[in-house]
């Protein structure tokens, strides 16, 4: 619970209050911006669509109006063309010129006068009867009652004249026209191969009237309406004629209607002068289709390059007659308003929404600041309280009365503080209790260790004695308080080699002992082989200090947390123990000597008495034959004694090193049996032989005989002359085996480990030397074989002799159980 500098509150870059305000502003701004953008986009689109549709409707309406205007003018002209006087006059001129083919000469003559402006010539046309008639029509005198001709239309007509079927001027009012018109476009258009049709000419500049004009040419048909007899031609100032109609239609500051022809030439416009083309030629195909519509174009046709919405519509009737037919050109209205003005409402809306949005955001920021302050202040209070709890310094409970989750949180903080305080108090008690327990445990351990009489040291990795019990202190003259800083080898006055060994074992950390154990497991020692004395001396864990001999043992203690592991060393003073052991060994040896002596005496005594008896008998014996027989017996007895002595010599290890030869195991077994039979009472012993055949092994026959005889003797003796002796030979795996089994009582378990000890016997004094098994094993081992005894109490005893087989004997000495060569024979030889 120490307060390090890192636990101090970090300088936060963005406080909670700032974050709250920013998030509130974001919540306000993002929808505002998105909504504004959407509204602007959608609004612009809708305004464009609505404007386009309105413009289209307006264009159609204007087109209809202008069309009617033109149609009225055409009708006016057509009424003149239908006048019977005019028709009759023109028919007459047609018939006349057909009858008198001299019209051309007359005409050229008259034409010169006309060009020269001769008053008579001019008057003959301008003031003739037909011209007067035209003027009457023109001024409206001939109009139907109530049908008024607009002044403006009348004023805009600059020229009105009539030609005959050849295009020659017949009558005219207004400005003075040309005399001959048969080559003009309008005349040919209206005459139209004598079929006749209405022909409205596109706007062009006319020098005569000094204005941009369009013309209406109406053919004058004959009475039958069969063919054209003349053309009535009207030249009208376009601006003057159309401007009252188009200029009146204005909307907004820039919105207006204009009239253009199919080439994009302006016929009438409040802004552009008549006769100029539209500023953008690309616009013309967009606005001159034959159906009304509206289009969003990239220019306005008035010189501006801004995106414009343009409504347009053709003049349906007029277009039919322009330049003769609708294919040759048409007239269109063109409705346009500056896009700034069209989109002004949405821009105003945008500005106002932006202004209100900004105001709203400012309000939001203010409210956000207030709200954030209300939230953040109690949180700050809680933070300070938490810091105080962390230091354990919170004395007064936190007091927040906001009535929401923060108040609950404050209460939880208070509760937590109380619980923490209680928990800390309990924890201190527990720690004290545990400490006392540990101390008690340590004291009891010390007392136990002190009570133990063997010296015990605890040594750390630096060979320093950490602890020594009372016995150690007393044994090695240490004061208890100095034990903490003294080297182990200062305490133990060891010679150099023992010190080195001890140090090595200490460094290995007791691993030496383990390794030894592992080695022992790897090569299991024959339990019947006595331990080698040499080994014991080398590895026995003991050392000598002064006159005392100590056995020692390392042990390892588990390391305490955070400390080095400690090794323990237990010493055991075995000085007295080993002395006792030596005395025991000595006593055993002396006892064995006594047994040996008694045994040898016994063994030699019997034959010796036999020899003495036989010798006495020879002395009194007359018969040479019988004496010889006694002598033979004496020799035999002597040999037996020699054998006993040789046995003894065998025990003591004097051996001749003769060469082993291949011998038949069965033969040697039989010979050994014969030897035993010659010396022992085997009348009640049944001998079973189970021979495998000619099992040949490498051995010396005499010694092998002796070893086998010893074993058979033991068996016979164990059975006390009554029972079954089974002799078995076998050959297997380059090993020849002979097994001798008796039906005796067996060997008790406690004796089983001692049976190979020299002089160990269970028989009475003088019955056996106790060397039989020892000798037998020694002999068998010498040949590279092995002797094993298997026995159990009440189960009889089996001696298993294995010997290395002679290589030549392999293959022929297998024992076949189906044809046992065994022969059961009772002992026939009874000496």
């Amino acid at each position, binding site marked *: 619970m120490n307060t390090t500098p890192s636990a101090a509150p970090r300088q936060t870059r963005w406080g909670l209050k700032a974050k709250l305000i920013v998030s509130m502003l974001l919540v306000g701004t993002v929808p505002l911006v998105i909504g504004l953008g959407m509204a602007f986009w959608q609004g612009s689109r809708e305004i464009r669509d609505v404007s386009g549709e309105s413009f289209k409707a307006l264009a159609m309406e204007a087109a209809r109006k202008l069309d009617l205007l033109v149609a009225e003018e055409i009708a006016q002209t057509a009424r003149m063309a239908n006048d019977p006087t005019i028709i*009759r006059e023109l*028919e*007459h001129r*047609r*018939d006349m010129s*057909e*009858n008198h083919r001299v019209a051309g000469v007359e005409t050229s003559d008259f034409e010169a006068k006309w060009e020269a402006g001769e008053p008579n010539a001019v008057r003959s046309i301008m003031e003739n009867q037909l011209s007067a008639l035209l003027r009457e029509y023109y001024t409206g005198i001939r109009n139907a009652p109530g049908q008024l001709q607009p002044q403006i239309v009348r004023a805009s007509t600059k020229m009105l004249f009539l030609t005959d079927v050849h295009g020659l001027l017949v009558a005219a009012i207004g400005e003075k026209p040309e005399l001959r018109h048969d080559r003009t476009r309008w005349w040919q258009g209206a005459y*139209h*191969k*004598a*079929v006749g049709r209405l022909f409205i000419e596109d706007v062009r500049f006319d020098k005569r009237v000094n204005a941009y004009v369009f013309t209406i040419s109406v053919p004058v*048909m*004959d*009475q*039958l*309406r*069969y*063919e054209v007899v003349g053309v009535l031609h009207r030249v009208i100032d376009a601006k003057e004629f159309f401007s009252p109609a188009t200029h009146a239609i204005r909307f907004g500051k820039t919105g207006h209607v204009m009239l253009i022809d199919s080439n994009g030439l302006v016929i009438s416009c409040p802004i552009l002068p008549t006769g100029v083309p539209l500023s953008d030629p690309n616009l013309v195909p967009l606005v001159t289709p*034959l*159906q009304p519509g509206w289009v969003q174009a990239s220019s306005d046709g008035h010189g501006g390059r801004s995106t414009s919405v343009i409504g347009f519509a*053709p003049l*349906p009737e007029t*277009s*039919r007659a322009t330049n003769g037919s*609708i294919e040759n050109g048409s007239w269109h209205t063109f409705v346009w308003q500056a896009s700034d003005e069209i989109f002004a409402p949405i821009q105003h809306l945008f500005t106002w929404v932006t202004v209100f949005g900004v105001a709203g955001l400012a309000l939001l920021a203010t409210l956000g600041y207030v709200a954030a302050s209300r939230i953040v202040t109690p949180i700050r209070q809680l933070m300070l309280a938490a810091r105080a709890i962390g230091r354990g310094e919170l004395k007064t409970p936190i007091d927040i009365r906001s009535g929401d989750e923060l108040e609950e949180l404050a209460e939880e903080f208070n509760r937590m503080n109380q619980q923490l305080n209680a928990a800390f108090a309990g924890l201190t008690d527990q720690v004290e209790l545990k400490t006392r327990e540990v101390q008690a445990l340590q004291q009891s351990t010390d007392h136990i260790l002190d009570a133990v009489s063997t010296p015990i040291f605890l040594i750390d990795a630096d060979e320093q004695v950490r602890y020594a019990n009372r016995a150690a202190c007393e044994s090695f003259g240490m004061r208890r308080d100095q034990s903490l800083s003294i080297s182990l080898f200062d305490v133990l006055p060891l010679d150099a080699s023992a010190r080195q060994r001890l140090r090595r074992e200490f460094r290995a950390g007791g691993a030496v002992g383990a390794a030894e154990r592992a080695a022992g497991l790897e090569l299991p020692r024959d339990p019947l082989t006595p331990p080698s004395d040499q080994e014991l001396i080398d590895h026995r864990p003991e050392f000598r200090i002064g006159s005392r001999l100590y056995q020692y043992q390392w042990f390892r203690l588990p390391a305490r947390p955070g400390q080095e592991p400690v090794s323990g060393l237990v010493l055991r003073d075995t000085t007295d123990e080993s002395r006792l052991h030596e005395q025991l060994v000595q006593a055993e040896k002396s006892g064995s000597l006594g047994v040996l002596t008694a045994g040898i005496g016994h063994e030699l005594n019997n034959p010796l008495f036999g020899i003495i008896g036989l010798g006495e008998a020879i002395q009194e014996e007359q018969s040479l034959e019988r004496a010889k027989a006694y002598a033979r017996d004496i020799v035999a007895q002597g040999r037996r004694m020699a054998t006993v002595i040789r046995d003894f010599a065998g025990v003591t290890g004097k051996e001749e090193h003769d060469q082993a030869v291949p011998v038949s195991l069965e033969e040697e077994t039989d010979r050994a049996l014969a030897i035993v039979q010659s010396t022992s009472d085997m009348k009640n012993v049944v001998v079973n032989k189970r021979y495998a055949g000619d099992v040949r092994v490498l051995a010396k026959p005499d010694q092998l005989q002796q070893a086998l005889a010893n074993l058979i003797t033991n068996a016979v003796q164990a059975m006390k002359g009554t029972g079954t002796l089974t002799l078995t030979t076998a050959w297997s795996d380059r090993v020849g085996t002979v097994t001798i089994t008796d039906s005796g009582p067996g060997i008790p378990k406690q004796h089983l480990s001692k049976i190979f000890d020299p002089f160990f016997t269970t028989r009475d004094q003088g019955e056996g030397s106790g060397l039989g098994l020892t000798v037998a094993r020694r002999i068998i081992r010498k040949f590279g074989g092995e002797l094993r005894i298997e026995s159990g109490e009440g189960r009889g005893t089996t001696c298993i002799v294995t010997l290395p087989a002679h290589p030549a004997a392999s293959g022929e000495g297998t024992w076949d159980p189906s044809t046992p060569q065994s022969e059961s024979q009772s002992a026939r030889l009874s000496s």
Partner: protein
Amino acid sequence: MGSIHATVRIAIRTLVIVGCLWSGSPLLFAKDGPGGDGIPPDKVADYIHAILEANRTIYTTSIVNRLQEKGILSATEHWEQDNTLPLPAQLLQHTGRLVAESGRGIRFRLIGLSPIYQRNAPATQFERQALETLRQRPEQPITGIVTSGKKRYFQAIYADRAVSPACVSCHNTHPLSPKQDFKLNDVMGALAITIPLE
């Protein structure tokens, strides 16, 4: 749609050309006068009338009605702007104009006592009387010699009936139509065929 238009135009042209060929040849015989081996002008006019009638009938039933029934294209007055088919009456007028423009002299046009456009009103007294007569007796055409100045023409005027519902509905609904109670098969006007006699 484009192909249909093209087909329609070609069909119209074919009808007109056939009409012209048929109508051109009798004129030669007409010039031979009544006494010779020529064909009298009233017969020639009859031939022409039969061809014109047949052409318009085929156009009405096999082209206009079928296209209209299938909803592909309808016939309207302002067919150029509306991108539609000409009305059967317009077919006759336009072919008449085309024939006139060919310069062969023969003319034919539709006239009526209650025309939508004044230009189709009777031009002469003869035409007006013929229309009056045909209204009573539509079976027989009215023929006669008329003059314009010194020119003489043979004119034959045949009663023209409302051959299809389109004729009736157009005349009965057109804002400029002075008479709006036509019925199918009524005599709406007449077809005037004019043949010059010089």
